[in-house]
């Protein structure tokens, strides 16, 4: 296939269809609505299930039910909608059925706005729902990655009987870029053996997340955790740029990482030895890779479109080996490359101890920047 100019949300949706999604259940919410709209046209066309649910609560529980049949199913929503799905997500995790969920994140908390944000990092990676479970979280940063990682998402979900979240922001959803769609996959005729399909000639299958005896629940928890440790070993994904000889490492995911790459390139042109690490799997978090980087560089700058969430994971991994600084924009503001370039320059020449005050220091700089009209 050759490259086409594709819009993020639509490429996402079409890629899901080609990956064999047989059920889409969703509710309109900006900026993910185009996903649902695309599906409302394409799914019936292909004889597949599409339901505009009465709410996100219903949508995730439709997904939950459909997933129990062993078919590839998904939903797409945006921050408040994901919050409404929290209970269902925890049930899906506890029942160990594969589900793919796309979150086109927007500014928050609360109703907030519809602009691009990364403020759901914690909700997505640490589990917004109750109890011990471990979702896979992938953060593509381009239309091509959106296509590639939603395809992967279905495979991983099935392989590990896990939830896979895809998190992007409105920038990725709205952008057009040249990208290549994979061919349409054949839909398997056979359901997995654990699925509910009618107990024809076999013992009934029961799918549940209740284990009333704590001893039994602990067995499940151990199984989930061991599976997770497997996932942590096998499924870390990331992109690096110019890190080989870097003295400064910038770390950012999704749009923030992508914007940072422009700043890194510009900084390189100024002779600053800076490189970029862009986690794609936010969970499992690229612990080993960042640990290695922290042994090679002088300083790390974390860039996010939130108040410093991945920052915490980076700091946990870096273990104080080098100072970790932070730059973020919030509330739906996408940083421009020049802001990050300024930060890279500053970090490059900074030798001071950060002393766990990286957020305080950043806030001062941010407020000065805003006061300066940028």
């Amino acid at each position: 296939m050759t490259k086409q100019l594709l819009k993020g949300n639509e490429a996402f949706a079409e890629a899901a269809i080609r990956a064999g999604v047989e059920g889409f259940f969703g509710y309109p919410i900006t900026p993910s609505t185009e996903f649902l709209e695309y599906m409302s046209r394409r799914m019936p066309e292909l004889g597949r299930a599409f339901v505009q649910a009465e709410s996100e609560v219903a949508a995730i529980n439709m997904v939950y039910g459909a997933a129990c049949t062993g078919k590839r199913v998904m939903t797409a929503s945006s921050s408040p909608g994901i919050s409404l799905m929290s209970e269902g997500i925890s049930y899906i995790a506890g029942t160990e059925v594969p589900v793919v969920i796309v979150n086109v994140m927007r500014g928050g908390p609360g109703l907030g706005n519809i602009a691009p944000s990364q403020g759901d990092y914690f909700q997505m990676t640490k589990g917004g729902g109750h109890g011990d479970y471990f979702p896979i979280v992938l953060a593509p940063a381009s239309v091509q990655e959106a296509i590639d990682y939603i395809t992967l998402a279905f495979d991983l979900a099935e392989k590990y009987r896990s939830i896979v979240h895809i998190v992007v922001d409105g920038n990725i959803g709205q952008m057009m870029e040249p990208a290549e769609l994979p061919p349409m996959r054949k839909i398997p005729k056979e359901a997995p053996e654990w699925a509910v399909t009618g107990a024809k000639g076999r013992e009934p299958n029961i799918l549940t997340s209740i284990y009333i005896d704590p001893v039994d629940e602990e067995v499940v928890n151990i199984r989930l955790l061991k599976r997770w440790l497997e996932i942590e070993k096998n499924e870390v994904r990331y992109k690096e740029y110019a890190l080989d000889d870097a003295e400064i490492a910038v770390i950012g995911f999704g749009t923030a990482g992508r914007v940072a790459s422009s700043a890194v390139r510009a900084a390189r042109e100024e002779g600053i030895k800076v490189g970029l690490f862009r986690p794609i799997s936010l969970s499992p978090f690229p612990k080993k890779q960042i640990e290695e980087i922290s042994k090679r560089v002088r300083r790390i700058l974390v860039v996010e479109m939130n108040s410093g969430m991945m920052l915490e994971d980076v700091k946990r991994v870096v273990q104080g080996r080098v100072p970790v600084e932070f730059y973020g924009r919030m509330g739906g503001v996408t940083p421009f490359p020049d802001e990050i370039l300024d930060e890279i320059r500053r970090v490059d020449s900074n030798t001071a101890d950060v002393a766990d005050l990286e957020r305080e220091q950043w806030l001062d700089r941010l407020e000065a920047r805003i006061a300066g009209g940028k």
Partner: protein
Amino acid sequence: METSIIISGFGGQGTLFAGQVLAYAALHAEKHVTWIPSYGPEMRGGTARCTVIVSDEEIGSPLTRNPYAVVALNLPSLDKYEPLVQSGGILIANSSLINREMERTDVRGFYIPAAKIAEEIGNPRLSNMVMIGALLAVDPVIPLEVVKQSLNEHIPERHRKTLTMNFEAMERGAVFVQETLLTKKSA
């Protein structure tokens, strides 16, 4: 080489489509390209804007604070982007709707009576194509011929009947710029 272009105007002036025409052409020319519309509350404010970045390398940010070129189809767009165009960059204003002078002297500024030209062609909705033609005449980020080929391939079927008009609009825009340049030189 990375070229960033912002096309900005009222909703209905075809700014998003004009950007897409450039993006398709960039793809046609085997360049890296991103197209991103204004997104967020501005969608509801009556303005429509997109950023197109064309590059020989992989593109990082699809957004830029300081574009290389700005195509301003209305006054608020000129007000917003004139201060932001890169020094040495391009600023093309739709003089049919904009009646103030540019203040920047360090950019290549052009006034195109896009609506007037479009009306002369017979389709007032083609201001956007006139402006694109003008832009490409100032800096052929993508050669006009490639843009035409690409438009021929990607124009929605229901609009195919307007294809030659589109071509004409771009050409007229380009010619207007060339004449302006001659005038300037002779001035």
